[in-house]
């Protein structure tokens, strides 16, 4: 059924459809309206979940860790400073192979205080072992959240779904909400069971080799994610990337998130003027869609809404480590600085002419 929903409400609808059993979260702008809506759903009896209010994000993910280890389908959501505050628990969840799903509403990390979008926060998860997806709009925020539970529970890795603060989280747009899931999400199968009368310890001190084994096993399961996304059986088809007007492209733009919609409009404008340009939109950052980047045979521009001080844009750095062609990186839109269709038209034009520098503007 088509509805007008903000990205945050779309995520809440997905959590409800997934019959999540446990939610713990701490409010932070621009994430707050996700758990606000979920709390309403629990209050009204539409969602039969335990909703635990906690005193910090560290506690939120710790509570979710316990619930997930105990066998429940568990969800949390956060942004920016909240994500950083729960950072230690992010590693516990991943290495303990718990299929937790978390919405990360991307927001700039301060100081100065800034509530607007930037992707540096969600990219701090990139070494943890979380599957990381990034949505372009409210529809994808809903779809990827549902896909998140399915994939996470298939590979026993946690799943983070990113949505741009305000641009997706608070923008109301048309979303097709599935009436039901028709068995898309079967009951969760558990890697281990914690229950009274049969005590176990997870993650205690053990041989050093165990730490290596754990990461190797995680890598192996992470590699299965692409195939599972392509064959998820969801009502809409998904892949690790979206290829837009790539068929005969001499120039390819790589980016992720809400502004990719603006980039597509800019690409259409340039295509009309005869510029052979297309886009490879990263729907997933982990696993990194290596196979799609490897086969590129053209000039590549990576537009990063994040920055690693001392090296450069994070996605550009990763693309350069894989690509077999020329890659130019540009950093734009940090701190939520608005970059729209007109900006992208002139940015891409400069790129084609070879006049583009490393920062926009």
């Amino acid at each position: 059924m088509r509805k007008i929903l903000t990205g945050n409400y779309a995520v809440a609808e997905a959590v409800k459809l997934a019959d999540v059993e446990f939610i713990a979260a701490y409010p932070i702008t621009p994430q707050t309206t996700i758990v606000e809506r979920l709390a309403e759903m629990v209050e009204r009896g539409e969602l039969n979940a335990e909703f635990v209010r906690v005193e910090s994000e560290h506690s939120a993910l710790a509570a979710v860790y316990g619930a997930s280890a105990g066998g429940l389908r568990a969800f949390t959501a956060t942004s920016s400073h909240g994500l950083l505050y729960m950072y230690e628990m992010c590693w516990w969840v991943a290495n303990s192979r718990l299929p937790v799903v978390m919405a990360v509403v991307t927001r700039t990390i301060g100081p100065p205080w800034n509530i607007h979008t930037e992707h540096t926060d969600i990219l701090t998860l990139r070494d943890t072992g979380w599957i990381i997806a990034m949505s372009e709009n409210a529809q994808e925020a809903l779809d990827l959240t549902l896909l998140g539970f399915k994939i996470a529970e298939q590979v026993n890795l946690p799943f983070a779904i990113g949505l741009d603060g305000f641009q997706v989280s608070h923008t109301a747009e048309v979303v097709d909400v599935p009436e039901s899931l028709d068995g898309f999400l079967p009951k969760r199968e558990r890697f281990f069971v914690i229950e009274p009368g049969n005590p176990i310890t997870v993650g205690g001190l053990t041989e050093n080799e165990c730490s290596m084994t754990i990461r190797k096993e995680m890598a192996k399961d992470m590699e299965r994610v692409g195939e599972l996304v392509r064959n998820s059986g969801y009502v809409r088809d998904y892949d690790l990337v979206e290829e837009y007007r790539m068929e005969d492209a001499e120039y390819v733009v790589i980016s992720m998130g809400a502004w990719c919609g603006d980039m597509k409009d800019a690409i259409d404008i340039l295509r009309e003027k005869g510029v052979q340009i297309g886009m490879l939109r990263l729907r997933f950052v982990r696993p990194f869609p290596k196979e799609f980047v490897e086969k590129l045979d053209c000039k590549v521009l990576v537009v990063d809404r994040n920055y690693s001080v001392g090296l450069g844009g994070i996605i550009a750095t990763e693309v350069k480590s894989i690509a077999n062609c020329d890659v130019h990186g540009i950093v734009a839109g940090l701190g939520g600085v608005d970059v729209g269709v007109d900006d992208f038209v002139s940015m891409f034009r400069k790129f084609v002419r070879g006049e583009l520098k490393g920062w926009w503007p």
Partner: protein
Amino acid sequence: MECMIAKPSKGAAGKTGLWRTFKPIYHPERCNLCQLCWLYCPENVIDVSEDGITIDYEYCKGCGICAKICVKNAIEMVREEET
């Protein structure tokens, strides 16, 4: 991830009784069965019955907490080679 999951089991670290320098010796005639030694033993090697306590010397590391906590001095720590 099996290497990360531990189940409680007896003597996972081997026969820790070998570590002992001092051995707890039980004097049943002084004991009033208060069970404080059983409660405080960090290695869970003390069993209590109506007849008194028994100590599992295969795993007792000889820390002496039982002797310290005993108000009746019913447990005495003695050098291993003297027993």
